[in-house]
C-alpha cells in the first residue's frame, strides 16, 4: 500500500486551528523556517482510512492467539481503555499542586501497596517507564547502596545467567558495572558449581529471571540466595515472568532485594505495537532511601508526592511515571482482587497443557514441568527435513496464529518459546496444537511450503539483510517524488 506521503495532495488538511483576531509576533532574525516540513496533506477521512488500512495489515491479541514467549500477550480488557480516557485522568497536568491530583495520587499509592504485596517487598517506585529502565534503576540503587557502605569501588561485578534477556547485560553496562556470565546446568537451572567460583567480595549482585526464560523455576534458588547474601551481595529479580507466580511465590520471599514489574505483561497494559509499558520497582527496606523521586506517600487523610529524600538517586524519567499505564494496570488488578493467584495458575496450566501435547512432535530440551511458558526446539526438523524454527514460525501465520518467540533463549538451538497466558480457552490451545502438528507433517511431505511461508499475509517473507545493509529509514521525497494527480 502507499505511504501517507504518497497520498498527499497540496493544500489539503485534516483539521482546523482557531485563529483569533490578533497579530502574530515576528520571529527574531535568523530563526524562521525557510522550507516548510513535508508533512502529509490530506482531508480527515483520508487520514482515518489510511490508518484503518494499516491496522488491517497488523495482528494483535484482539485479532487472535499470540503466544509470543516472555511477552505475556494476554487479553487487554476494554473497560481499561474507557477509564483511562476519563477527563479527570486524561486531562490532568503532571505539575499541578497535590491537592488537585488527589485521585491520581490515591491510585498511585494503592498501586504501590498492591505491588508491595505481590512482590513481598517493602517500598515501591512507579517511575521507570519500562522493564529495562526498571533494571537500570535497580542497578543504580545497588550502586547507591554500596556507595553508602564504602563498597561501590570494590563491588564492580554483576552475575547474569546465559539464559537472561539481552536487556540484563545491556543494563549492566549502562549502570557502569561489569558482567560476569554464569552457565545453565543440565536441568535448566543456574549451574551452582560454576556460580560458587564467581561470587566474591567484588560481586555487587545477581540479576535473575525466575522462572527463567526457559519457563523453568530455578530449583537451586535457596542455594543461590545463600551464596549472594553470604557474600554481602544483592539480588535483582527481572519480573518479565511474574505472570507465573502471582500469589504463589513472591520474589521478596525468594530472597530478592529489588524487583521490576512489567505492567505491560503481567498487568495487561496493551503493548501498542512496541509500547508503552511500565516498569515499577519494589525494594527491600534497606534500599528504600535511594529510590527515585518523587514517591507517593500518605499525608493526613490524603496523599502527596515526596521529593525530600536526600539519599535518592534522582530521577530516571520526568514526573512520577507513565500514569495512564498505572490506571490500566490498577483497573486490571482490581478486576481480579486476590484472584490474581488463579490468573497465574491458569497461565501455568495452559502452558503445561500445550507442552504435554507438543512434546512428542518437537524436541524438548529440559524434561520438566514448565511454568507459564516453555521452550521447544526444531533441531530434529532441521536435521531431518531442513526446516528451521523460522520456517515453523512463518507457517504458523498461514494457520492464523502469531508465531512464538524464536531463536531465544540462545542456549537452545532452533528455539520456539511459547507462552499462551491465562486468556486462552482450551479450544484455542487445541487448534494451535493441531497447527503445530500439521506443520511437522508438512515438513516431511512438502518442506518448500514451509520455506516459502507465509502465503496469506499482506507481504511475503522480507529481506532483512538488505534492510540493514542499505538502510532506508525515512521516505525519500527527492528520490521518489510524490505522485500528484493531474485532475
Amino acid at each position: 500500500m502507499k505511504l501517507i506521503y504518497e497520498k498527499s495532495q497540496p493544500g489539503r488538511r485534516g483539521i482546523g486551528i482557531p485563529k483569533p483576531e490578533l497579530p502574530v509576533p515576528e520571529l527574531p532574525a535568523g530563526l524562521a523556517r525557510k522550507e516548510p516540513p513535508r508533512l502529509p496533506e490530506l482531508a480527515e477521512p483520508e487520514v482515518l482510512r489510511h490508518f484503518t488500512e494499516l491496522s488491517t495489515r497488523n495482528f494483535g491479541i484482539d485479532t487472535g492467539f499470540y503466544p509470543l514467549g516472555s511477552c505475556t500477550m494476554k487479553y487487554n480488557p476494554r473497560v481499561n481503555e474507557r477509564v483511562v480516557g476519563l477527563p479527570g485522568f486524561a486531562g490532568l497536568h503532571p505539575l499541578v499542586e497535590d491537592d488537585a491530583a488527589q485521585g491520581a495520587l490515591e491510585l498511585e499509592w494503592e498501586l504501590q501497596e498492591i505491588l508491595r504485596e505481590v512482590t513481598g517487598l517493602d517500598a515501591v517506585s512507579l517511575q521507570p517507564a519500562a522493564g529495562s529502565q526498571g533494571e537500570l534503576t535497580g542497578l543504580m540503587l545497588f550502586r547507591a547502596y554500596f556507595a553508602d557502605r564504602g563498597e561501590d569501588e570494590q563491588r564492580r561485578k554483576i552475575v547474569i545467567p546465559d539464559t537472561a534477556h539481552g536487556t540484563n547485560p545491556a543494563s549492566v553496562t549502562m549502570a557502569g558495572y561489569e558482567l560476569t556470565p554464569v552457565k545453565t546446568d543440565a536441568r535448566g537451572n543456574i549451574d551452582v558449581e560454576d556460580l560458587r567460583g564467581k561470587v566474591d567480595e567484588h560481586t555487587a549482585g545477581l540479576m535473575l529471571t525466575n522462572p527463567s526464560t526457559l519457563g523453568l523455576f530455578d530449583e537451586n534458588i535457596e542455594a543461590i540466595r545463600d551464596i549472594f547474601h553470604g557474600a554481602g551481595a544483592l539480588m535483582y529479580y527481572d519480573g518479565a515472568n511474574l505472570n507465573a507466580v502471582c500469589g504463589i511465590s513472591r520474589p521478596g520471599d525468594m530472597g530478592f532485594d529489588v524487583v521490576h514489574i512489567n505492567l505491560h505483561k503481567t498487568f495487561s497494559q496493551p503493548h501498542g505495537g512496541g509500547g508503552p509499558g511500565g516498569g515499577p520497582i519494589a525494594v527491600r527496606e534497606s534500599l528504600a532511601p535511594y529510590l527515585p523521586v518523587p514517591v507517593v506517600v500518605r499525608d493526613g487523610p490524603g496523599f502527596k508526592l515526596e521529593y525530600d529524600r536526600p539519599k535518592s538517586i534522582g530521577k530516571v524519567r520526568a514526573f512520577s511515571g507513565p500514569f495512564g499505564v498505572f490506571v490500566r494496570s490498577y483497573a486490571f488488578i482490581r478486576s481480579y482482587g486476590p484472584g490474581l493467584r488463579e490468573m497465574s495458575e491458569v497461565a501455568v496450566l495452559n502452558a503445561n497443557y500445550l507442552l504435554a501435547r507438543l512434546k512428542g512432535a518437537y524436541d524438548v530440551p529440559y524434561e520438566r514441568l514448565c511454568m507459564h511458558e516453555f521452550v521447544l526446539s526444531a533441531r530434529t526438523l532441521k536435521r531431518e527435513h531442513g526446516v528451521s524454527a523460522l520456517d515453523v514460525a512463518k507457517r504458523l501465520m498461514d494457520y492464523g496464529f502469531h508465531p512464538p518467540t524464536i531463536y531465544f533463549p540462545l542456549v537452545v538451538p532452533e528455539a520456539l518459546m511459547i507462552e499462551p497466558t491465562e486468556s486462552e480457552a482450551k479450544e484455542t490451545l487445541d487448534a494451535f496444537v493441531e497447527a503445530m502438528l500439521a506443520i511437522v507433517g508438512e515438513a516431511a511431505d512438502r518442506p518448500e511450503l514451509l520455506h516459502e511461508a507465509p502465503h496469506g499475509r499482506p507481504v511475503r517473507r522480507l529481506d532483512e539483510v538488505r534492510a540493514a545493509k542499505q538502510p532506508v529509514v525515512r521516505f525519500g521525497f527527492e528520490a521518489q517524488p510524490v505522485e500528484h494527480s493531474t485532475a
Partner: protein
Amino acid sequence: MLAAIGVSSVDELFRDIPASMRFDGELAVPPALTEAELQRHMEELAAKNVVDEVCFLGAGIYDHYVPAVVDAVLQRGELLTAYTPYQPEMSQGVLQAVFEYQTAICELTGMDVSNASGYDGSTVAADACFVAKHATGRSKIVVTEATSPQVRQVIKTYAPGFGLEIVEVPHENGATDPDRVREAAEDAAAVIFQQPNFFGILENAPELAAAAAGDGALPIAHVDLTSLGLLEAPGVYGCAMAIGEGQSAGNSMSYGGPHYGFLAARSDYIRRLPGRIVGETVDAAGERGFVLTLQTREQHIRREKATSNITTNQTLLALAGLVHLSLLGPQGLRELGETCMALSAYAQDRLQEAGLELVFPERATFKEFAVRTRGSAREALAQARTNGIYAGYPLGRDYPGLDDALLVAVTEKRTVEEIDRLVEALAA
C-alpha cells in the same frame, strides 16, 4: 487438561518451588470488582482530581487539543494490542506507521534518521548523551540551565553509570550566552540546549549550535514539535541530534504519561542510535515492505555491547503524534504555532497593561513566558485558582531567586476571554 499433563492437581504444577518460598494464604489486595463496579470506582477516583480550572500550566507538558481521529486510530485493536513487530509479516501496519513517523520527525527536525521513540523528553536526552560520548570519545556534557529541570535531573541520574560529567551553563536574563557555551564546550562530547527554552524564550539557536561545535562537541537541540512549523529545523543550523518531548503532538497530558520522546540524528550516528529503527526493504516477490532494522545495535543481539537496553518504547504514543501531524499538515502546524504565539503575546501585553512585569521583558517568546506576581508565585497561583484559573508554574521550584515568577503557557485551546480572566486573577 490435568490428565493430559499427567498431574492430579494444579498445585502439583508448582512442585519445583521450594516450600520455604511458597506463599500460603490470600494476597492482601482489595477485593475483586465487576466491570460496572470498576467503572464506578474509577470515576470516583477521577472525580477527586481537579481538571476544570483553565489551564495555563506548561513547563514541558501542554494542554493542546487532541483530535478525535487520534483516539479512533489508537483504539484499533490490531494496533493497540500488538507486541513489538518481531514478525514483520504480521506487523506491516505498525512497521509502516513507524516508518512514516520517522519520516515526519526527520522532516520537522532536519535530520536523516529518527528512532521509533524513547520513553519521554528526558530519557532521550540521556540517550543522546550516550551517543555523543561514544561518537566523540569525550565524557563532558554541557547543558544549559534554561533547559527543562526534569531533563537535567534525568541526565544527572544517568551520568555516573555512563561515566559522564555534567556541566551547566547559567542563563542570562532568561537566555543563554553563546560565548559562555563556547567556553564550557571545550573538550565536551555534547552541548544540550532547549529551543524554545524552559522559560519559553527563543534562544539564538544557530549561534548556540555554532558555539557548541567550535571545539568538536555535538550540538543537540531539545525542541517542541509544535514550534517546528515556524522555527528552523535544528539540522539546518548545524545540530548533530534533535530530541524532545512529543506530548504536544497527539497525546493528552495524563498526569505525565505515557508520552513519547523523539530522538533524531544525522546519518553519521545511525549505527550508534539507541532503540528500534524501522527500515524499508522488499519481500520475496519484490514488493515493498518494512522491518525492524540495524538490530546489531540492540540488546537482544549485542547484549552488554548494545547501544542501549531499551526494548519497550512508546510506539503507540508516537503513532498518535503521527496521526495528529498528518491531520495538521505543514499549514496546520504553522497555524498552530502562530495561534499559540499570538495568544501568548496578547497575554503578555494585557498583563503588562494591568501593571504586572514580565521577568525577561526584552526576550522574544513562543507559547510560554514568565511573569512577576504580586507576592510569591505560590500564593498568586492559589489565589487565581479560587477564580477557576490554574495560572502557571512557580519557577521558584527550580530556580532560586525566582520565587515571585510564574511560568505561563498559552496553547491554541485558550481563548481571549480566558486570558482576560487570567489577567484579572493575577492583577487582583
